[in-house]
């Protein structure tokens, strides 16, 4: 593992500009293979990076050395990218599998997020039910639903998707080609516009 360190020296061009003093993040969630990394890569100014967290199922508060045999480990990967949106502000996009139990593995991943982009594959709509339930029941996070247009995927009118996914009338549903930068940026614009309508963002914090 430590060899990775010396193989990937950070080029100074990958540092943020010295004026950047603020970061915000958006979560990009969705089922396996739905296009999370592609969307992040389309927007990011750096090659998407990857980091992994390894969790032993009985890890929290338990001596990890004891009871070796009964433990199983789960590796959860997070892909992410970044885009400097103003001289002072960098936006980070963190892509992770949709289920809330995966984000909980990352300390602070959901905390303070502007919102989430939920990527949907119309060939497997049911795969998105869990993440939508989690977002609605367990967070107050704004989210936008993104329908990645795969060539062989059924094309539904937006309002039919809204009904099928039981989304509020105000929740943005955006069709997108995650490979296209303009299309991917439009998704983020829709999410941030939507977030700005949330009461929590109405007050200017000192």
């Amino acid at each position: 593992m430590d060899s990775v360190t010396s193989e990937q020296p950070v080029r100074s061009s990958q540092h943020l500009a010295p004026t950047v003093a603020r970061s915000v993040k958006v979560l990009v969630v969705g089922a396996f293979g739905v296009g999370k990394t592609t969307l992040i890569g389309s927007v990011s100014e750096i090659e998407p990076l990857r980091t992994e967290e390894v969790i032993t199922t009985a890890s929290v508060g338990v001596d990890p050395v004891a009871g070796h045999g009964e433990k199983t480990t789960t590796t959860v990967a997070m892909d992410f990218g970044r885009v400097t949106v103003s001289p002072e502000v960098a936006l980070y996009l963190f892509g992770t599998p949709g289920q809330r139990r995966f984000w909980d593995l990352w300390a602070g991943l959901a905390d303070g997020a502007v919102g989430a982009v939920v990527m949907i594959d119309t060939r497997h709509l049911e795969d998105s039910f869990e993440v939508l339930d989690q977002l609605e029941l367990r967070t107050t996070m704004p989210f936008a639903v993104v329908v990645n247009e795969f060539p062989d995927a059924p094309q539904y009118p937006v309002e039919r998707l809204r009904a099928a996914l039981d989304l509020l009338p105000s929740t943005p549903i955006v069709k997108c080609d995650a490979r296209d930068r303009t299309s991917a940026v439009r998704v983020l614009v829709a999410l941030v516009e939507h977030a700005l309508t949330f009461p929590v963002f109405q007050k200017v914090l000192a």
Partner: protein
Amino acid sequence: MRDDEEYRDHPVRSYVLTSGRAHPTRNTLRPETLLVAVDGRPAPATASGQQRELLRLCRGTLALAEVAAYLGLPVSLVAVLVSDLVDTGHLTIRSNHQAHALPSRDVLEKVLDGLRNL
């Protein structure tokens, strides 16, 4: 499984390292927290190889998650290394995130303007 091979020694190490610690800085660290090394301060004599590498990476501003990715280590482990280096005055948190604080409307508007102009 490949991942088990590669990461076998991490769960134990990261939980041993993180358990029972109560660094105040840790609570404000998130994957997007921006870090930068304090100019001209050499690494402490006691710094581990990982901490030296971390300080080298942070000669310019990077987020915690970026540092973790370049080091090939989990974010949870790097948060501990970072918090030690902040406490000893070698590393600065460039963007301070209070626990549970959301970005202000002002910042969101900057993000929106910036995205529209990309």
